[in-house]
């Protein structure tokens, strides 16, 4: 897919590239595709490329001297179809316990959505979600693919302390809180996985472009995961789906 993109200077050392403002699978994949191209390009001086649902921020090592030529380099790279996409994306299964103990907002959510708990779990675990980007908190995944039947506006009053691992729905998005944090999404479960660990490099085993799939686990399975993670006998590779 080729889009008409908007290029603008963001600050002395960065350029913002924008797609139409939608959470859309095609746009998201085009963003990731272009990001990958920029990261693997020979354009000099680029140090970081950050993306979101519909934009890319290209950060340069030093002040951009000639903004128009920098725009041109990026534009011609976007149009260059000779570059082959480098595929190294994983699909990761994420265990979620939807028990009442963890799903503190599930009751209200179930009433508002007129869906039973098991219907919610079925709808939430069915899709393969795309990780469009990571932001907000270290390790917070922005996922695309939530079933529209599960969309529900954020809570009017945010919860001041959402527990680490909480799996939640906010508007048309679903995500996992990688650490304790304030948050306004409806909490429907909890995952025992450590999504962010600054002592490892990279600090997240999930990256933009990867796919994730939730699956329901019992409380006792949750505790087993937790124990394995704590004593470091847990192997994350066991949750990677081999294509």
């Amino acid at each position, binding site marked *: 897919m080729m889009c008409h993109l908007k290029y*603008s*200077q*963001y*600050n*002395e*050392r*960065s350029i*913002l590239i*924008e797609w139409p*403002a*939608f*959470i859309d699978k095609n746009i998201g994949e085009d963003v990731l595709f272009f990001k990958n191209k920029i990261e693997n390009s020979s354009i000099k001086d680029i*140090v*970081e*490329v*950050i*993306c*979101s*649902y*519909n*934009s*890319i*921020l290209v*950060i340069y090592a030093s002040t951009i001297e000639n903004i128009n030529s920098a725009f041109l380099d990026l534009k011609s790279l976007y149009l260059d179809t000779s570059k082959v996409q480098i595929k190294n994306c994983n699909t990761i299964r994420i265990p979620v316990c939807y028990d009442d103990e963890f799903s503190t907002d599930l009751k209200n959510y179930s009433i508002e959505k007129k869906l039973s708990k098991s219907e919610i779990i079925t709808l939430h675990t069915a899709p393969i979600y795309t990780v469009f*980007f*990571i*932001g*907000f*908190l*270290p*390790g*917070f995944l*922005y996922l695309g693919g939530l079933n529209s039947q599960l969309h529900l506006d954020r809570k009017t009053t945010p919860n001041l302390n959402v527990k680490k691992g909480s799996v939640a729905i906010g508007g048309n998005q679903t995500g996992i809180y990688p*650490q304790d944090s304030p948050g306004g999404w409806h909490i429907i479960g909890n995952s025992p996985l450590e999504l*962010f660990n*600054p*002592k490892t*490099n*990279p*600090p*997240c085993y999930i*990256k*933009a472009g990867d796919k994730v799939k939730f699956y329901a686990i019992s409380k006792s399975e949750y505790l087993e995961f937790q124990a394995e993670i704590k004593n470091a006998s847990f192997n994350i590779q066991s949750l990677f789906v081999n294509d």
Partner: protein
Amino acid sequence: MHRSIFNLFLSMIKVLKSGFFSTIQDQGRFGYRNFGVPVSGVMDKYASDFANQILGNEKKSAVLEMTMIGAKLQFLVPTIIAITGGDMNPKINGESVDMYKSIMVSSNAVLSLGYAKSGFRTYVAVKGGFLTDMVLGSRSMLKVITEPFKISDDDILPIAETVELEGTKNAKIRYKDAYLRANSIEVTKGPEFNKLTQQQQDLVLNQNFTVSKYNNRMAYQLLPLVKNNLESILTAPVLPGTVQLTPAGQLIVLMRDSQTTGGYPRVLQLTENAITILGQKTTGSSILIQLKT
């Protein structure tokens, strides 16, 4: 072998008092924003760079950043230091010392810094730099990323071993401290600036604002409120210096520890120099926001 172990134990600074909020910072943590990791780094790049420069350090050497009230430090080895940024009335063993110059410090000397008389943040650099833990390519302290995330009383801070104790030749560079008194900052238009009405644009540009009590390394809020009817945006990248406008009308200037993405309209963007100037302001400071021409 003996020598290195000896020095391992001795090349240190003991924190007698940590001050109000002190952290070790360097140029920042690059390459991890895609994982949602803030870039961090010194709030006042000019002060930090200057301090490292007078000591002949690399630019990326880590320094101690102190906020509002300075620390009291005991040097367990002789070294050379430089103090820059805001004036916290630095004293060594009770005697006032110059800022913006290299200072030889003997073993067991005690450096004490007080309340910031000018500016809001003060830097202490040591010859060769502070050597606290490197996490994801940076020593910059930050909650969730580093442990500890700030300096506390009785901490021991490792520093580089100083081989030569000769003072650096007093290079002819003068600290241009006028920015500490600057009352205006330059901005460019942010991606959502044009969504503001002409009247709202006039309310954010070339206007005086006051720094609210909500100011820290993550963000500075400015007053008064700017009434607006902007819709939130699809979560998008932000940078230090990005000015967000909330539905409640708060202007939030993101600083070094800011999140990597945000959903509020990005109406303005501070220049690098403007971030440095604002980082030296505190609650109640007045600041004019000017469009860069």
